[in-house]
């Protein structure tokens, strides 16, 4: 079945462009003014095609990602990737939210298993997981291509216009079970894959090669330019599957000794730009490498230079 492109993101991927997406994280508040501002900043770089809007990240309940996605896209003009977790909703709730998303003009949805509520700030919540992330991909796929709900009932009215993505964690050890799982998501109908942050270019290339043995689904590799030694070291220690290379950690540790803040930032920016330009240049050589998902929340300065450098312009 030929993939239909409903979103600018998917159109660009299918046109063979190497695309860049960003990340937006609404918080535990009914106000998303700051997130809309960040979306506007991303849009103004002129280089980000769409940005993800997180859904209860780290299992800490925040404002609805559906509501936030709609307002962000409307007010900033930046296309969003509406994230949707299986942790908190039954298939019935997922389905009705997806109908709503299509009606509201959201064109990308990203299927996630979601962290277990026990790992969040309110562990008393009941974990739902009626579907897993591969099954949620299948649900969206059937809504779009069969115009059916999960029980085979017909959806009335306009066609559902959603491109569905899945996620991957290319730094997991061992990575083979993860590759096979991502292949299952592709089998279920994923249009694209966005990955967790990865620093090690060899691991990223290995993941792309292993996945290519199963599927040609396009992959947007996740990167995170750290602003400080603390951030880099946090990712290294606490984020599952993320290993920060020792060289990077050592260099950032040395940067801490630079007393002049402006000079320190200059060094950090310079390092990030060089590191990630090289990283992107390497991964984009792979046929199934379709772009980069840049998770640089609150660190806009490096986004444009990284992309410009990677594009060789």
């Amino acid at each position, binding site marked *: 079945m030929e993939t239909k492109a409903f979103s600018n993101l998917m159109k660009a991927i299918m046109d063979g462009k190497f695309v860049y997406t960003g990340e937006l994280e609404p918080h535990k508040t009914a106000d998303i003014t700051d997130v809309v501002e960040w979306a506007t900043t991303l849009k103004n770089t002129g280089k980000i095609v769409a940005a993800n809007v997180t859904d209860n990240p780290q299992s800490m309940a925040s404002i609805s990602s559906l509501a936030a996605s709609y307002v962000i896209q409307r007010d900033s003009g930046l296309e969003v990737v509406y994230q949707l977790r299986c942790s908190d909703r039954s298939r019935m709730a997922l389905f009705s939210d997806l109908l709503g998303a299509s009606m509201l003009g959201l064109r990308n949805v990203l299927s996630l*298993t979601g962290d277990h509520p026990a*790992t969040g700030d309110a562990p008393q919540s009941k974990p739902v997981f009626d579907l897993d992330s591969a099954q949620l991909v299948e649900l969206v796929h059937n809504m779009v291509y069969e115009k059916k709900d999960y029980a085979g009932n017909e959806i009335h009215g306009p066609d559902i216009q959603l491109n569905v993505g899945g996620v*991957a964690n290319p730094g997991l050890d061992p990575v083979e*079970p*993860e590759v*096979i799982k991502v292949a299952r998501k592709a089998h279920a109908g994923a249009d694209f894959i966005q990955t967790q942050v990865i620093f090690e270019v060899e691991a990223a290339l290995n993941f792309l090669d292993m996945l290519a043995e199963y599927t040609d689904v396009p992959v947007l590799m996740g990167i995170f330019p750290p602003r400080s030694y603390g951030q880099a070291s946090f990712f290294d220690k606490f984020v599952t599957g993320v290993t920060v290379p020792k060289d990077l950690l050592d260099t950032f540790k040395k940067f801490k000794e630079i007393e002049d803040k402006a000079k320190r930032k200059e060094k950090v920016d310079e390092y990030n730009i060089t590191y990630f330009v090289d990283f992107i240049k390497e991964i984009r050589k792979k046929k199934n490498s379709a772009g980069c998902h840049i998770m640089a929340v609150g660190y806009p300065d490096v986004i444009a230079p990284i992309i410009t450098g990677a594009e060789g312009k």
Partner: protein
Amino acid sequence: MIIVEQKPLEEILGYLKPYKKVLVVGCDGCTQPPRSLREAKSMAMQVEMGSKLEKKDITAKATTLVKQCCKDSVAGLGEMLEGVEAIVSMACGAGVQTLAEAFHPLPVFPAQNTMFIGSAEHNQGDLVEKCQACGDCLLGYTGGICPVALCAKGLMNGPCGGCYQGKCEVTKEVTDDQGNVTTIQNDCAWFMIYERLRDQGRLDLFKTYRPMRDARVSSSPRSIKWA
């Protein structure tokens, strides 16, 4: 085995406040730790001593049944019930309810919380959940390891992104008798399934996409026709 955990004595004594003559009924069936005659006698003794501390005087007798959840088996309690005002059951929830129905209007109280279907891991001396009685057994496809009971998220299509080096992102705190708290990180069920199937040369099963399950088979209350 059906794994049970005794309730605090205060809770049990709370149930028994209005009564003076009590029968504690053990169960020789599938409860683990065992809840047979010996444990029923011990519970009866605890009830009597506990009531004395509260300046009450409960008389507690003890007996046991082969299977408290079997209606035919519970009929054997007949004579023991003479003069009894309340029953304390040492069985799982099914046993408690069978007694409550069989001997209504006599009140029946649970002496424990029914935890899960599991087995003993002798290396660690732990009782571990193994089955959720989901009604749609997948063990034939998953190398004999249950993703419904052993995956914290009950996933059907492989490990989530929280699995690292074979461990699950979910941890739990276990308190022992002395009040010492240990944090346990579970093994990732899907990682175990991957290794088991890989070692058996059956990775094709691991690669198979599993569609959404029909939740009706595991939705309570369930019943089946038997004979």
